[in-house]
């Protein structure tokens, strides 16, 4: 599965510009650490998402060129793993855990209440870009079920009202 960078003049050009972009330093470091090998693809996509927050077309093209893997394979990996996102997240995120313990503990009701109050579904961002709603399979914080992560901070023993209150603090509540 080893391939060399592809000879597409357009991509080649872009590649050169992006290689100089300081935001790509962390990504480039990961690529180097992986020995420019195709098996570092997932690590590299992690690095891209860490520095940019999401994977866009350009960055996937860049990664494909740098590692010498086909474009379709990069897209395949980026969409197979749910940790990767191809859309930028809102300013604030709330990730509701839907693991078994949280589900038994009522996380579905929490999720439904958020959907009702914000009008968005999991994976979506509010129109003003302030807030994204996401779901997770399990944080492993089952002891504190039901749990959710507010901007990455896991908080447990929640109820629908307390969660929505936290979200209003970010978005403002027009009631």
């Amino acid at each position, binding site marked *: 599965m080893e391939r060399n960078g*592809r000879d*597409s003049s*357009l991509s080649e050009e872009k590649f050169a510009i992006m290689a100089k972009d300081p935001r790509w330093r962390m990504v480039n470091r990961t690529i180097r650490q992986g020995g420019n090998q195709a098996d570092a693809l997932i690590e590299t996509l992690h690095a891209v998402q860490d520095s940019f927050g999401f994977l866009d077309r350009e960055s996937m093209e860049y990664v494909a060129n740098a590692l010498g893997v*086909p*474009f*379709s394979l990069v*897209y*395949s990996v980026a*969409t*197979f793993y749910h940790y990767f996102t191809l859309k930028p997240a809102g300013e604030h995120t709330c990730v509701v855990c839907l693991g078994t313990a949280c589900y038994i503990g009522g996380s579905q009701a929490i999720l439904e209440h958020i959907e009702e109050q914000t009008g968005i579904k999991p994976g979506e961002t509010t129109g003003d870009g302030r807030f994204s709603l996401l779901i997770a399979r399990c944080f492993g914080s089952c002891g504190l079920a039901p749990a959710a992560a507010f901007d990455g901070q896991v908080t447990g023993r929640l109820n629908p009202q307390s969660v929505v209150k936290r979200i209003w603090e970010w978005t403002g509540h027009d009631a």
Partner: protein
Amino acid sequence: MTSGTVLPRKRRVRPVGSHRILTFKINNRDVSSREDESILAVARQNNIYIPTLCHLDGLSEHGACRLCIVEIKNAPKLVPACITFPQEGMEVSTCSERVIDYRKKLLEMLFTERNHVCAVCVSNGHCELQDLAIQLNITHVRYEYLYPRLALDGSHPRFIMDHNRCVLCLRCVRVCDEIEGAHTWDVMNRGLDTRVITDLNIPWGSSETCTSCGKCVQVCPTGALSEKGKSVAEMVKRRQFLPYLQKMRRWEEE
């Protein structure tokens, strides 16, 4: 087995490229095979019919459609013949009641996944999925149709991709990667949302990597990939080139 095993002084080495020959039974018939031949290959040599869909001579095995499942005596699970290799004395059944029952159910399930409307399909009458339904004597589908909403990509100047007819056999992905060497095709997402894509999920017509060789179209078992300008029942696939190309590619490598 942690004690008492002694490595033989001299390892018995067989000549390079040679394989053990073994005998086993398919449907109570004695057959002989090389150890590196799949049950499917041996069955075909002996004119024993096993239905297949994702398998295609000339491509690597995918082992995903499960239609070639066979029963092995004393094995709890059914195994796909395309990726299972015989063992000495093995007793294989390709058409037990259990096998036939599962095969029918699997094929019916495949019909529910996408919108296979044979009556208006370019491949009507020349479709492997349709043929399988006839061979397995399927007159209706017991499961509920899922009716997914799927797109059709007509951006390529010569070909059309219709996800409604796709069975995810990934022949297109494999032929593009293994024979053409472009790897334009792959699949995105997972589970029921799995779709074949070109490059970074861009319209096929704007792909920079596609050589428009059309191999993917010819190997596609259904009407998912077809040539433009073909109307209902007019799309006949030609894939006699495949075993030849595979041989030539191997020869190149050696």
